């Protein structure tokens, strides 16, 4: 029930910000109706669990996102340098790492964070084994050091 309320709040905010209508009663009423309809559909589709609407992660995500953003910027510079240098300073490798996250959601966040960071792409995810393709030595070291793995284990509720 609490999760339904939170989904409704998020959808309402999204509707308000996208439409920009704050005063017209008819349009606001239609907005409320569509929000309630979407919450009902989400309930019927059973996508209404901690996986479909992971609002419980939001506080820790506010700590994780800035760190991820910093990593993305550093990785961008690394890969951009590797591409423009002549000959290209690349050393493609394929390796496997183990995710220490307890939930499937945590492992998906880990795999997606690796892919989002330039220079490393998760090409396969089976149980807790991630197959990663890295372009540069820095990308390889970045994933193997396990810093991101620990941060996401913390994000999903670890200490």
């Amino acid at each position, binding site marked *: 029930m609490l999760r339904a309320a939170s989904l409704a709040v998020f959808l309402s905010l*999204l509707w308000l910000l996208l439409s920009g209508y704050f005063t017209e009663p008819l349009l606001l009423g239609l907005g409320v109706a569509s929000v309630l309809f979407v919450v009902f559909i989400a309930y019927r589709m059973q996508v209404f669990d901690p996986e479909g609407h992971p609002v419980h992660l939001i506080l820790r995500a506010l700590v994780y996102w800035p760190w991820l953003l910093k990593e993305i910027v550093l990785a961008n510079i690394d890969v951009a340098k590797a*591409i423009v240098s002549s000959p*290209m300073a690349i050393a*493609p490798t394929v390796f496997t790492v183990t995710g220490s996250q307890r939930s499937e959601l945590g492992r998906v966040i880990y795999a997606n*964070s690796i892919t*989002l960071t330039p220079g490393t792409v998760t090409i396969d*995810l089976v149980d807790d084994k991630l197959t990663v393709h890295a*372009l540069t030595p820095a990308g390889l070291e970045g994933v193997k050091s396990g810093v991101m793995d620990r941060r996401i284990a913390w994000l999903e509720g670890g200490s």
Partner: protein
Amino acid sequence: MALLADVISWALILAGGALSLIGGLGLLRLPDVFARMHGASIIDTLGLGLILVGLMFQAGFTLITVKLILILLFVFYTSPTTTHALARACLYGGVEPEAARKDRARKDVEGEPPSSP
């Protein structure tokens, strides 16, 4: 003040454009499909990000900025998913990463048993 915002905005847009160019160069220069994905991921993280932040400086504190932030957020959520889908499709479609092939070739030379059948 408007001039300062313009200068910052143009610097960001030009930096984003330059990174997108480098990403495009990477798409052409890198050796195989898996390596090329890294070039593409420059474009849809910092390339796109810098251009959108530059545009936010043009828009100021308006609903347009909110929409630009939402675009950024949605791309950051969806682009790793599509990249992963592409990589997995290549892998299961029989495209072997060049790195893995070289690795196997080296093991064959050194006489180690192959790790996978």
